[in-house]
């Protein structure tokens, strides 16, 4: 068993800054992430001054990094069971910081299971990982502030952006733009994306009705206001803003809402010694995540003056988060056809689910959410489609090897 003063789950900007700030105060830190490198989703493959210095700061003798490592179970006595590509470990913490970030909300629509249909951030991540995009025709649809940087990124890499279809109304988007104008840095960023996207058709009040193709997406049908039309394309990037990753917090027994881990102003969850920072505390963006990384280190080390200073900063950043949440609320969805797949892992359709009373019944009777992703896609989708709440979270949190689970027997021979 390895023991640490603080274990941080998630090596995105929040977790990286927390690790660095804790190590600078003499704490022994473990930083865990399921990706092959630090940076989270937003800093994947990004190489600038901010990312270089954040990555360099992790080379501290006080920081142990566990990459490609998944949390399989949260255990009694402040322990975690984690799985690496070749091994498994029990890790003990005095304090636990959950920086588990967010994922895209992917909502079902006819044809969304076809190869070539990806998340919006998903397509960007795949391109950064080597997928060719030059000359490909891409339609980006859904809602959320992620649309803009991703569209600009794809275009810079040679994609032909056929159109951007945003579900929100124009007045709502204008209100958001006016709010952004209060923050010169953010406004500047928005203007730079807009400049990179000159000439790309942008439609508000628009959504995807169906994606066509037999073995790959070849086209998409869009509803724009009263009109419908068909667009030919190679890829459809679909996303409906972000949802926080709450499963680890829920497994620990922390109180959560559908959009955040519940915390105090000083980041404490409802479980002693457990803190939450970054997107898992509610979608707040990069600067908010970084500020909360610093704040949690100050709080854990009882550094009152640094706490006060970073708390102030966090409050400012959270105001922007509130504006984002108010603008890009879960969209109104057109009714699904009965044969539209909702649970991709188990191929459960809307027709099989629409009369189910709740998530638990759908799991037990239809196997909805019982596949390898363990409801990470359809759980959030069914919450929007049918208003189902989440069921209790049980270990293993991710599919795990038998040898990993056998470690549990080693510590507690009477455990199930």
């Amino acid at each position, binding site marked *: 068993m390895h023991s640490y003063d603080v274990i941080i789950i998630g090596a995105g900007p929040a977790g990286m800054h927390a690790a660095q700030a804790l190590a600078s105060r003499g704490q022994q830190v473990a930083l865990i992430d*399921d*990706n*092959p490198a630090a940076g989270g*989703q937003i800093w994947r*493959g990004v190489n600038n001054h901010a990312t270089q210095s954040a990555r360099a700061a992790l080379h501290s003798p006080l920081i142990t990094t566990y990459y*490609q490592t998944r949390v399989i179970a949260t255990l009694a006595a402040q322990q975690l069971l984690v799985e690496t590509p070749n091994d498994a470990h029990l890790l003990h913490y005095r304090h636990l910081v959950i920086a588990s970030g967010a*994922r*895209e909300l*992917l909502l079902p629509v006819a044809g969304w*299971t*076809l*190869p*070539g*249909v*990806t*998340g919006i*951030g*998903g*397509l*960007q*991540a*795949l391109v*950064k*990982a*080597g*997928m*060719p995009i030059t000359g*490909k025709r891409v339609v980006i649809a859904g809602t959320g502030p992620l649309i803009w940087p991703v569209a600009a990124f794809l275009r810079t890499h040679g994609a032909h952006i056929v159109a951007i279809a945003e579900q929100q109304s124009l007045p709502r988007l204008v209100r958001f733009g006016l709010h952004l104008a209060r923050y010169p840095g953010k406004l500047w960023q928005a203007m730079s994306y807009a400049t990179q996207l000159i000439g790309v058709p942008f439609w508000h009040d628009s959504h995807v009705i169906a994606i066509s193709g037999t*073995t*790959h997406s070849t086209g998409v049908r869009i509803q724009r206001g009263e009109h419908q039309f068909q667009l030919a394309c*190679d*890829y459809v990037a679909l996303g409906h803003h972000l949802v926080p990753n709450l499963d680890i917090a829920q497994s620990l027994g922390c109180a959560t809402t559908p959009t955040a881990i519940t915390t105090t102003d000083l980041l404490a969850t409802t479980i002693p010694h457990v803190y939450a920072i970054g997107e898992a505390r509610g979608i707040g963006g990069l600067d908010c995540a970084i500020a909360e990384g610093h704040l949690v280190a100050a709080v854990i080390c009882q550094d009152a003056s640094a706490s006060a200073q970073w708390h102030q900063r966090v409050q400012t950043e959270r105001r922007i988060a509130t504006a984002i949440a108010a603008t890009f609320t879960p969209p109104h969805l057109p009714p699904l056809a009965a044969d539209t*797949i909702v649970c*991709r*892992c*188990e*191929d459960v359709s809307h027709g099989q689910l629409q009369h189910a009373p709740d998530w638990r019944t759908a799991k037990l009777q239809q196997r909805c959410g019982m*596949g*390898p*992703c363990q409801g*990470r*896609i359809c759980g959030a989708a069914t919450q929007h489609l049918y208003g189902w709440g989440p069921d209790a979270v049980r270990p293993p949190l991710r*599919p795990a090897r038998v040898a990993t689970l056998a470690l549990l027997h080693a510590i507690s021979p009477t455990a199930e």
Partner: protein
Amino acid sequence: MATITVFINNHPYTCDAGNSVAGAIAQAHQQLVTTRQSVHGMPRTAVCGMGICFECRVTINSNAHQLACQTPVATGMQITYEETGYA
């Protein structure tokens, strides 16, 4: 960027060393291709790109159900998936 050789369904393929397995497969075919059949036989491949949806799972060095999007390529890596006749 440095390149390395991996084997995709037993065919050697030279790709960028910084690629993920999902990126390498897409590079080899110049597009995303079907790498899995769903329980009802529908074509599927990577969607979320970040280890959430599990749609990209392939066999890597004889270990089944590895996430192609979260696994970096390595020299000599054997990547296999069922070729279904889907493009």
